């Protein structure tokens, strides 16, 4: 007798019928359970253990969640973007920054905690993690670090992974240099009037400055810093450069993108050279956008938080674009426009599932592109060549602000 036939038999006509019906139902349920058990293997006693991640693929990424709603609880997720699966996570407290070693064997988290939650002694920390065990391999206290909504270029690593650079603002601007062999801060280089870190090579970095120049800091063999300045190449109050502009550490190539959509190809170094800018709009067959002098003109503009990404070997620049006036530089992008950095032409235009404040891209031949819905915390994994949605992780986090993929530096 199947359970499905019981409703026909159990026609409630009286108390005795009801009793018989209950009995029959019970017997049937017991029989069904016994059948199910016979199909299951006999369970063995188990030991609790902990897993280790497989070696990182080009599609294993870090996603930084600033958790704006309760900022001290920030975290960084390790995601298998081929499957859209969370593989592990670590703390990344209070406006934290994350950077990955070039071989993806370790990553660093610059974070800030207070001894008693919201009070007590402040600890600015640089934690080094093994990327496969997610165990801390070094945990050093820093002199300070900048407390600012996290940007990728507030923490950086040299091409040979020998130095980590930490941007500080306490409130004077400086860059702490951490020796990754000894895990000690060897020095703090003052960068007055400048901010951020765009690393180049094994021993140098540049910062963007308030006067529209680049400050180029070179650390000599003796470790001593020397600084040069480029000529001013932009006017921050008329057309500022996005802090999240992409750069490549190995060869010092950078693409500084302005609020209006000018792209300044740059080679960072002691004698940094900034080339004549090209226009995102002109590269897409439109007229260039005006600067802050004509703020009311509505056109397609770059914007968002992590508003750009670079695919090095494909020479592709990914930019989040939205339609808006000047001073909408933090508006989420409804589309991603992809440019060939050699020809300065738009090669693709992809509409996102929802407007996203961040875009990321992997560095392999079949790249994935990443975006988020800032309202829901959903995380999107898309085909970077077509914009097709491949996976969606619902409500992954509170404020997904940028991704870090292997091989970006």
């Amino acid at each position: 007798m199947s359970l499905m036939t019981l409703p026909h038999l159990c026609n409630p006509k009286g108390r005795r019928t009801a009793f018989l019906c209950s009995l029959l139902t019970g017997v049937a349920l017991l029989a069904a359970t016994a059948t199910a058990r016979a199909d299951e293997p006999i369970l063995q006693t188990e030991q609790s253990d902990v897993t280790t991640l497989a070696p990182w693929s080009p599609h294993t990424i870090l996603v930084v969640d600033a958790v704006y709603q309760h900022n001290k609880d920030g975290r960084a997720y390790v995601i298998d973007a081929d499957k859209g699966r969370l593989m592990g996570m670590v703390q990344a407290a209070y406006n934290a920054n994350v950077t990955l070693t070039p071989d993806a064997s370790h990553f660093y988290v610059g974070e800030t905690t207070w001894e008693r939650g919201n009070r007590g002694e402040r600890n600015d920390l640089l934690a080094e993690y093994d990327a496969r065990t997610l165990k801390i391999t070094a945990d050093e206290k820093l002199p300070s670090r900048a407390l600012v909504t996290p940007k990728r270029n507030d923490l950086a690593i040299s091409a040979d992974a020998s130095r980590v650079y930490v941007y500080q603002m306490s409130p004077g601007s400086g860059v702490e240099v951490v020796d990754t062999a000894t895990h000690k801060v060897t020095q703090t280089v003052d960068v007055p009037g400048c901010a951020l870190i765009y690393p180049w090579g094994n021993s140098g970095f540049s910062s963007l400055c308030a006067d529209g120049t680049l400050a180029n800091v070179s650390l000599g063999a003796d470790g001593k810093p020397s600084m040069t300045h480029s000529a001013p190449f932009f006017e921050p109050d008329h057309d500022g450069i996005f802090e999240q502009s992409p750069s490549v550490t190995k060869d010092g190539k950078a693409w500084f993108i302005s609020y209006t959509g000018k792209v300044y190809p740059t080679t960072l170094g002691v004698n940094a050279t900034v080339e004549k800018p090209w226009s995102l709009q002109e590269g897409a067959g439109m007229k260039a956008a005006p600067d802050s002098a004509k703020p009311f003109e509505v056109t397609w503009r770059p914007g968002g938080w992590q508003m750009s990404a670079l695919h090095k070997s494909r020479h592709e620049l990914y930019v989040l674009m939205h339609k808006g006036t000047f001073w909408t530089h933090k508006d989420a992008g409804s589309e991603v426009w992809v440019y060939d950095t050699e020809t300065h032409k738009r090669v693709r235009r992809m509409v996102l599932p929802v407007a996203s404040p961040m875009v990321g891209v992997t560095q392999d031949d079949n790249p994935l592109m990443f975006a988020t819905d800032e309202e829901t915390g959903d995380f999107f994994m898309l085909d970077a060549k077509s914009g097709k949605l491949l996976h969606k992780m619902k409500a992954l986090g509170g404020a997904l602000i940028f991704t870090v993929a292997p091989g970006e530096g």
Partner: protein
Amino acid sequence: MLPSDNKQGSLLDRLTESVVRRIAGRTSRRDVLTKLGGAVAAVPTFMLLPVSRAGAATAKPKAMTPFGAKAQAKDELACDYWRYCAIDGNLCSACGGGVHTCPPGTAPSPTSWIGSCYNPQDGASYMIAYRDCCGQDSCNEVTCLNTDGDQPTYRPMANNDIIWCFGTGTSEMYNCSTAAVVGKAS
């Protein structure tokens, strides 16, 4: 924060002249600092500012920015309230405080960055000090991201990403943002 390097400082002065003009109209940087200092010392000049003279204005100047053109002057709990033209974060007015008042349990930052917002009520623009309230984690009742005049952190005096909690005596934990009028910009 201002750059301390002399060479940078002189260049900065020259290059920021136009933004300071935009921010402060005919008011010099020294005047800005003076007024800021006055506001920090709680000099009640705020009460003397002409906040409702719409009728007296013969030729109302137009808003200089898209935000200003759409701003309202009635609901201080809404993101389009005029003086929030460059606020980024949680409104203290929705967290137990007010437009220039920190909620209990937090402390106001003595430092801030300065924006310039157009008041549709009287057609004038005002300098606004965006001071954070600090010591408790994010309040989060009404969160806004307005970016009129917002510049990157290499222009810290015009950046709304920085946690402006220097010198509060509490932790630098950000709770919410206020928008205090500190002077007239036009």
